[in-house]
């Protein structure tokens, strides 16, 4: 045990993680008058050095794809050092027969730096899945309780969209959406014929100035970082106002190891490894907010063992690490001859889609439960490595005719991605690997993963739907042998990938993993109460996606921020009453 110095600094709150949840908590708590120390496992973000906005592929050593051409997509040379599937010295393991990929962002702002900015509210039924169809569990809170916090988040971060009254896809407080691109006009018409709802997307990108941030300038490169912060990231929009209060102490390169309990049974400190000096450190706080990402927060609790919590802190229920879900993902691309020889025009738009398809069969009888939404993109994006394979393989040969064939087919591919709801199952969870430690000596996570039958049926439905949309729009489905990922907008975080028919994504691949420290009214079946406060340890809170009880077909980030805002306001109330 460390000697406790009589002069040690005790903060009101220690927030672990600086992403969507941690950044929101830091802003609300500091503006509410509390002192906050924030531990971030990565470095500070440096837009001057880190952002590749507006660079051309030929200005980068590897034209964007990284050393050996192996970093296409989310880890490529265009992206700020936003995160990685594999981190040197910080492994995770998978149980035999399971496959799972875990994307981690060790940098100020976390995954909000590369977030696709898709900002969808969960709907009323998403908070009551068990009541709706008998599977899974209901949240302890309702849509109506969260709605005011969606309002606050959207008003502050800026989200474009349109009022549509789509069942279970609630409208929000929206800026005007950008006009559709040609590819989107084409697909929208096909969807209208098929009675598939296709509406303006809902993205955390400004189309009007807001709080010192200029409107989007339509360069399509959100994922590379935005110097005008016209898109949302915690690093540029949440952390600065928190820092401006003078009550935020940011400790970068701090890898949290354990939450330390005091003699009163409450958390009193967080021990961490200072990665820059490789020393063990400790910060003291009257309360702790875990916002390290769902699995990292579960890992931290499971690694915080003591005599009173032999199975991990706040885990008397045994649910920590359980109920792990990710979105169901499946992709298909088509080629559209009518897009050949389009007039030269600027197709960029925002970094991502202007239109999308919310789940259009809500409340209908389907051969699977729950639903999915469809994202799509393609067309005359900034040319990128990997974007010409279809044209080359189709034309073959060489010479001027090949060159002309590639030009003719440029911008004619549109890719579709389904993102659906997975129902938690007992075979999908994470736990501490008893054998493996990371380079800091911290035991790592071991993942167990299995998709259920419902998810496979849903992926099949996605494939059939994509096929019907492609054909209705006059296109041709690209076969597996023509597996060319179109150069997704350079700013898009998810590259369009062609998959074998009925392929379902790998667990974790969609980067919507959540549910591992779930909330609930019954302390035997949940770790957190309705305010994301630990049942067992009253001064421990969780503010990432770990508290989620279900993983609706709505990207989780907006809900993470709404819940974190709500939890933070609750903490301010407790502080006023002297109960924090």
């Amino acid at each position, binding site marked *: 045990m460390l000697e406790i110095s009589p002069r040690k600094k005790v903060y009101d709150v220690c927030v672990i993680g600086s992403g969507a949840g941690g950044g929101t908590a830091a802003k609300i708590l500091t503006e509410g008058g509390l002192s906050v120390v924030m531990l971030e496992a990565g470095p500070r973000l440096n837009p001057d050095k880190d952002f590749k906005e507006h660079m051309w592929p*030929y*200005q980068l*050593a590897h034209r964007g794809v990284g050393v050996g051409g192996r970093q296409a997509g989310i880890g490529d040379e265009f992206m700020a050092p936003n995160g990685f599937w594999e981190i040197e010295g910080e492994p995770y393991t998978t149980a035999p027969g399971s496959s799972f990929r875990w994307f981690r962002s060790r940098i100020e702002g976390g995954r909000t730096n590369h977030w696709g900015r898709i900002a969808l509210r969960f709907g009323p039924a998403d908070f009551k899945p068990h009541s709706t169809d008998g599977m899974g569990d209901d949240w302890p809170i309702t849509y109506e309780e969260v709605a005011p916090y969606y309002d606050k988040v959207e008003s502050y971060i800026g989200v474009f969209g349109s009022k549509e009254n789509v069942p279970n896809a609630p409208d929000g407080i929206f800026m005007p959406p950008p006009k559709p691109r040609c590819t989107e006009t084409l697909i929208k018409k096909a969807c209208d014929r098929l009675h598939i709802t296709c509406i303006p997307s809902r993205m955390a990108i400004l189309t009007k100035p807001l709080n010192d941030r200029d409107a989007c300038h339509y360069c399509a490169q959100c994922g590379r970082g935005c110097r*005008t912060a016209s898109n949302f990231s915690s690093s*540029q929009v949440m952390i600065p106002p928190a820092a401006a209060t003078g009550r935020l102490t940011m400790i970068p390169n701090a890898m949290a190891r354990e939450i330390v309990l005091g003699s009163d049974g409450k958390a009193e400190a967080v021990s961490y490894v200072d990665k820059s000096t490789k020393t063990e450190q400790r910060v003291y706080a009257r309360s702790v907010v875990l916002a390290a990402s769902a699995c990292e927060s579960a890992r931290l609790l499971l690694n915080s063992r003591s005599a009173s919590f032999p199975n991990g802190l706040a885990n008397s229920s045994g649910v920590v690490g359980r109920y792990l879900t990710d979105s169901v993902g499946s992709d298909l691309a088509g080629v559209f001859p009518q897009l050949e020889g*389009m007039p030269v025009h600027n197709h960029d738009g925002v970094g991502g889609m202007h239109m999308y398809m919310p789940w259009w069969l809500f409340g209908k009888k389907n051969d699977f439960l729950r639903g999915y939404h469809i994202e799509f993109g393609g067309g005359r994006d900034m040319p990128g490595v990997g974007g010409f394979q279809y044209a080359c*393989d189709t034309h073959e040969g*060489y010479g001027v005719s*090949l*060159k002309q064939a590639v030009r003719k087919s440029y911008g004619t591919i549109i890719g579709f991605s389904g993102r659906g709801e997975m129902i938690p199952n007992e075979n999908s969870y994470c736990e501490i690997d008893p054998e493996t430690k990371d380079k800091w000596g911290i035991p790592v996570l071991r993942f167990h993963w299995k998709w259920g039958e419902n998810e496979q049926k849903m992926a099949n439905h996605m494939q059939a739907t994509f096929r019907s949309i492609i054909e209705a729009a006059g296109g041709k489905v690209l076969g597996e042998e023509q597996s060319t990922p179109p150069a997704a907008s350079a700013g898009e975080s998810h590259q369009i990938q062609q998959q074998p028919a009925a392929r379902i994504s790998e667990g974790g691949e969609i980067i919507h993993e959540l549910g591992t420290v779930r909330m609930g009214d019954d302390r035997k079946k949940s770790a957190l109460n309705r305010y994301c406060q630990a049942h067992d340890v009253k001064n421990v809170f969780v503010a990432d996606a770990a508290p989620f009880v279900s993983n609706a077909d709505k990207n989780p980030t907006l809900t993470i921020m709404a819940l974190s805002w709500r939890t933070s306001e609750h903490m301010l109330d407790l502080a006023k009453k002297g109960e924090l």
Partner: protein
Amino acid sequence: MMDRVSRRALLKSLSMSVAAGSVLRVIPLHAAEHAHHAIEEEQAAGAYTPKFFDAHGYKTLRSLCDTILPADADAGGALEGGAPEFIDMLTSENTEYQEKLGGLLKWLDATCTTRYNKTWVDSAPQQQTEILDQIAYRKNADSDQSLGKPIEYFSFLRNFTADGYFTSKVGIHYLGYKGNTYLTEFPGCPPVPGV
């Protein structure tokens, strides 16, 4: 033209010109637009020294790239677009690429030596055409299975050359990509029949 140091200095000065009174680390749009045009002017300088191919191999690679995507009346080709440099650099870092391109060059020289008693680069243009026409089409492997590997390797180089050319300044212009710029409003899809 700007070198990397002056670009960094420019960006630094921009980041200090943050909107007065703002606590956000953002730069105003007009400053960002200036930075964009400065970056656009930036050019890599200096001649390229191959990292993987030897002198003969690099000469062969350049010749192949030039044949796959040549200059024409509309625009320069793979050589102007720096495809050989791009291919050499990535190949120096990737053993799978080394195997494929090494295999292709070896096959070309061996075949040309057998048939014409010359290496690929020293063969006459019509001799080169004769060889390439054998390995530029997948269907040729149906009648001669020994062509399977060279066809696969050539297809790989064709894709690689296209990647290098169409991501170059000249190649991007040739394709007609018009973006990576600043718009105050996104105009949407222009009027196009059938769309």
